[in-house]
């Protein structure tokens, strides 16, 4: 009867059943909720700049002052090598993507717990929450990046055609932040003290990434293995594309990208597997 005609693709029948084990990512559904994603990003940005007295300045202060301190202690006192470019810009070019990564990571790690009220009352693909949190950091990134361009002009460093690769390195930073954020956000729902480990993780990770030192300190094959930390690829990529260092993205960047992708896909599946319990435990 008419029911046969109705079960066309335009009329949705939702079947609710207990789900077990590993389930699909439902990326199509995520796409259908893109407006929600947009508004969540928009809300995060709006609220962030409304709430803090320093507003936009905060996005710059954080990496800039780190750069000043690093230049003083590692550049001046410890005489850290910096691939032949002035140490302040060597450090700052790494701190800009790093700050974006570290903030995105900690924001998304806490995102599910912070959105508990939404999760308990409304259905939508939960993946939008950590994704929105990472994306919202792009505005901060843009501000800090503008300062980086100013510094390059100050030091008379002008980018070459390599600049076109920069978005890819930014994407790698975004993917890495999201990947780790997904894992941590789920763990944070299950184990509430994960929140307190996040600052420790980012701090530890920062020293495991060539921010205050160049990765050229390492010999091959160690440098390629070092690329297993995806942020190595991001930071060296930024220096290469902007400052013209000789750390061309060789095998290390491929290793970084691969590691980030594995983390992301694994994180997304883990997230989807645990998603059904969020509303009950969060």
């Amino acid at each position: 009867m008419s029911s046969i005609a109705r079960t066309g693709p335009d009329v949705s029948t939702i079947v609710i059943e207990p789900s077990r084990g590993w389930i699909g990512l439902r990326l199509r559904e995520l796409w259908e909720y893109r407006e929600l994603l947009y508004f969540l990003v928009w809300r995060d940005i709006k609220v962030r700049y409304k709430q803090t007295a320093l507003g936009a300045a905060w996005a710059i202060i954080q990496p800039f002052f780190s750069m000043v301190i690093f230049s003083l202690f590692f550049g001046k006192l410890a005489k850290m090598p910096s691939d032949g470019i002035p140490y302040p810009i060597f450090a700052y070019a790494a701190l800009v993507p790093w700050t974006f990564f570290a903030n995105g990571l900690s924001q998304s790690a806490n995102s599910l717990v912070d959105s508990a009220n939404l999760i308990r009352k409304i259905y939508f693909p939960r993946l939008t929450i950590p994704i929105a949190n990472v994306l919202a950091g792009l505005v901060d990134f843009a501000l800090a990046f503008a300062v980086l361009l100013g510094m390059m002009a100050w030091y008379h460093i002008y980018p070459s055609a390599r600049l076109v690769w920069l978005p890819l390195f930014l994407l790698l930073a975004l993917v890495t932040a999201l990947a780790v954020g997904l894992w941590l956000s789920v763990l944070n729902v299950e184990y509430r003290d994960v929140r307190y480990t996040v600052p420790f993780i980012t701090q530890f990770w920062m020293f495991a990434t060539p921010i205050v030192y160049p990765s050229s300190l390492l010999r091959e094959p160690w440098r390629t293995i070092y690329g297993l930390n995806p942020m190595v690829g991001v930071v060296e990529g930024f220096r290469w594309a902007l400052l013209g260092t000789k750390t061309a993205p060789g095998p290390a960047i491929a290793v970084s990208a691969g590691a980030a992708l594995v983390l992301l896909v694994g994180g997304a599946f883990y997230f989807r597997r645990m998603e059904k319990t969020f509303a009950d435990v969060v």
Partner: protein
Amino acid sequence: MMPAIRVERLGKRYRLGGPRKSYKALRDILTAAATAPFRTVRSALRGGSLAKAAPETIWALHDVSFEISRGEVVGIIGRNGAGKSTLLKILSRITDPTTGRASIHGRVGSLLEVGTGFHPELTGAENIYLNGVILGMRRSEIARKFDEIVTFAGVEKFVDTPVKHYSSGMYLRLAFSVAAHLEPEIMLVDEVLAVGDSTFQRKCLDKMEEVGQQGRTVLFVSHNMPAITRLCPRTILLDAGSVAADGPSHEVVSAYLSSDIGTKAAREWPDPERAPGNHVARLRGVRIVGEDGRLAESIDIRCPVGIEMTFDVLEPGWVLSPIYDFFNDEGLCVFGAIDHDPEWKGRPRPAGRYVTTAWIPGNLLSEGALIVNAELLTIHPMVQHYHERHAVAFHVIDSPDGDTARGEYSGAWPGVIRPMLDWRTRFEGMVLDEKAAVR
């Protein structure tokens, strides 16, 4: 025709200790893991079993099945913890069922709370967009309905003010207004009407009624029995996670109210030591009775209702006045009443048991719940022997069959009382001369 909602043997199990307390600390897991070998060895040495005890669980919903056709408006009732909210959460896909399945045919909008996702720092206009998108509206749809939403909420002057500066009333009105402009085919609504002042509640009920009349499928969870009987032709009663009754709302609601699942219409204090009162008198029981003198929890609006108080006088020689105060479900005192029985007026009472009943005539009370406070006073000198708040409660149910004060009108009806007035109309014949008629 395919039903809008089909629920088959749905069940949901929670770990005991409440669904929200089940998260753990990583710290505990790590310490448990670190000490596990020792415990294992120790219990093995003691000859104990290595198997862990399964955590205690509770079925919030168990073996629930029903079907709802397209365009049906169905109420879900039951006391707290009966599984009403769990059912809506499963149907809204917020949480997964443990067993069974449900299929929903059509676009679903669920309204488990008004103002979900509202951010205090954002302005009214910004929150309309944010909340609308969260509830599943398209951005273009919100833009189209924007003025309507603002007008319905009555916040025209404050759209550009952050909602943290709103009064709680304005906040709620705006939140409900966004939700009320959702246009899904199937709507799941949880107790959103339990908030706000009475005017706002009326507005919400009217809007709900409108939604029902538009031929949309509505599942409506509420404690508000009058709203249920008015809005929903059919009602499902949940008790302890299972369907206890499913049928016409009037039948299900009165079955619910007259069973011990609902609010108590009778209270007893069997232990005189614990009964409210003092050395003069003790309250032993209060109950609501119908015309036939039998216990009644729900009363037809046309029928008289009696409130019966049983008390023991322990010390003779006091002049005693039983008193009742009646409150509606908004906490408003509808009226108070004092015993006027001429036999006992101004007369000191001997010790013993007394049963006194006050009769409220039919066609006086408005529909809804009435909560009764029972009191015993001596006026000269003023001594309060007992004052039992919320001693009993009952429900007045208006009927849509046309011979109550509301007549044929089935919409919202204002007022805390609903008397049947004596209307007389005289026909004075055709008016031939306009001026004469005016004069």
